[in-house]
């Protein structure tokens, strides 16, 4: 073949191999150490970070610092809500710090879960109001001020957008009962009524 064709072939091959290697960060080989760990997490959370049952939260597009903090909290058992004890204490017990970083990185790069819809428009609108304005009468600040205008999360403040509404509801209740070691959220959430929590959870699942 002629020189141009050869250059084209080399460039094409480089792009293909480079593309595959770049893709590999998002798609670890199933038999690699990260791949095997992702398979295990994926049993409940989905290998793409999207879970079926709301017992298990979506991890896709979750902020990496938040995933790291939670895995460490499961490992040292400072997060002690019922499902943490039943599932995650065992799961996290043998994870090393580099593995935790790798998993946080992997799931944070997964495409965000699609919006769900588990409530009517009135409830979702009510939830949006709580999310964007807070509840000033009870000194509850807007959730958006820490979790982002679109609930996309910020550093250790987790992404809430697209999360299962029943999971969000349960976490607020668990935080209100101080079963999770989350002093900032406990201060914020302790005045929320169940009706407000349900509304904001429904809104967050829908975005």
């Amino acid at each position, binding site marked *: 073949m002629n020189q141009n064709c050869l250059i084209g072939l080399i460039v094409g091959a480089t792009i293909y191999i480079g593309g595959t290697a770049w*893709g590999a960060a*998002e*798609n670890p080989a*199933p*038999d690699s150490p990260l791949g*095997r760990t992702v*398979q*295990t997490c*994926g*049993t*409940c959370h989905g*290998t*793409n970070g999207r879970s*079926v*049952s*709301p*017992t298990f939260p979506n991890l896709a597009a979750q902020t990496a610092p938040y995933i790291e903090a939670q895995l460490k909290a499961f490992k040292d058992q400072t997060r002690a809500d019922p499902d943490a*004890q*039943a*599932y995650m*204490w*065992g*799961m*996290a*017990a*043998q994870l090393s710090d580099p593995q935790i970083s790798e998993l946080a990185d992997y799931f944070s790069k*997964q*495409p965000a879960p699609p919006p769900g819809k588990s409530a009517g428009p009135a409830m979702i609108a009510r939830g949006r109001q709580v999310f964007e304005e807070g509840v000033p009468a009870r000194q509850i600040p807007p959730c958006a001020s820490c979790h982002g205008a679109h609930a996309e999360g910020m550093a250790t403040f987790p992404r809430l957008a697209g999360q299962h509404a*029943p999971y969000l509801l*349960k976490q607020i209740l668990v935080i209100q009962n101080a079963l999770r070691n989350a002093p900032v959220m406990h201060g914020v959430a302790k005045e929320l009524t169940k009706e407000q929590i349900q509304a904001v959870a429904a809104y967050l699942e829908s975005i």
Partner: protein
Amino acid sequence: MAVPSFARQTGMACAACHTVFPELTPFGREFKLNGYVLDNIKQIKGITTENRETLSLNAVPPLSVMLQISYTHTGKALPDSAATGALAKDGDVLFPQQASFFYAGKIADNFGAFIQLTYDGVGDSFGFDNTDLRYARHFSFGGTDQSSQHSMILGVTVNNSPTVQDVWNTTAAWGFPFSGSSVAPGPIASAKLDAGAGGIGQNAAGLGVYAWIDSSIYAEFSIYGAAIRGGAHPLDSTQSSVIHGVSPYWRLAYEHRWDRNSLSVGTYGIVAKEHPGNGHALQGPVDRFTDTAADMQYQFIGEDHLFTILATYIHENQKFDASFLNGAAQNSSDTLKTEKLVGEYSYQRMIGGSLGLFNTTGSTDALLYPADPVALQVVGSLANKPDSRGYVAEVNFLPWLNTKLQLQYVRYSKFNGMSNNYDGAGRNASDNDTLYLLGWVNF
């Protein structure tokens, strides 16, 4: 089967893998299909200089114990086994009914086992029980990225009872009722793939391969050969129901999960050729039992409420090339049909109840289902039919996830062909109604 061995190995509480033990959640099914190897405890490792792993052993063995203590009361006391005309003691306490020891968990990377050794309080004997060893690997195929790729587990199972390797609770080994009296009378007949008198049970050894695709499609093919514990070895005419050659067993299932629900539908079956034995040499013509079965399982696992429906239908064709010749069957072929439907409810895995309907119907056969008012009291069939139907009702209380207190009532509207005087000696189906109290603890 729920064993604290798995809790010790995984560090996860029972509720992760079980609704109420021994029934499995979707995650529990995944754990079993992955080879029982998910571990979160220290491993003792070995590798070669080429970095090939030679050992991955749990530093602490995943061992556990199970204890069942029970009380059985039948509607009418059973006849004394020796003193003519007398009745045996009304009500039987078994302490224990059963005590089991388990190694259940990882043996090496990708290779795990469920091994049960059981002391039986009725037989006063100790021996092997349900055992399943399996090797399983993950594969991905198809698709260009994570969202379109398919995941598959391929596995091999070596086990000692058809359906012990199954992960749904509709089949014999792990089906409802999950526990029952070992002294109350049971119907005269059951299919080869059912529990009860006619089932293959643990008289076989099996080797199978399976695939579990995208956590929804299950396909398995296994072969079973005769493996009878005790008695004459090599197996000879003094044994009974000895599988001839290998019996092919198959299992297909499709599971769909959404929100907190899972629904699976499936089919399974076996073609078992057997020498009847029982005094006849293990040569020449064989009986052939072809079981074709369908099953369905629905689970809802909520925050506080758990709900399960189990259903199975087994159709058995019986071709008696051997038993017809040696006088054990009146017909050269018969059929046996079995239907079961169960509904279960539990509140916070603490308090719950179940209701299971059962119905077995079959051909009239005077030699297969004989009657004798003297020699075959309780176990005979005046109508020469196996038809038995009724329900099992249970109430369960679990003060802790590993302890079950159960009240069970089995009611028969028909037993061995009839409702009244089914054995020709005056026993009615309702005389076999059973009240069963059970304390079941695992640790």
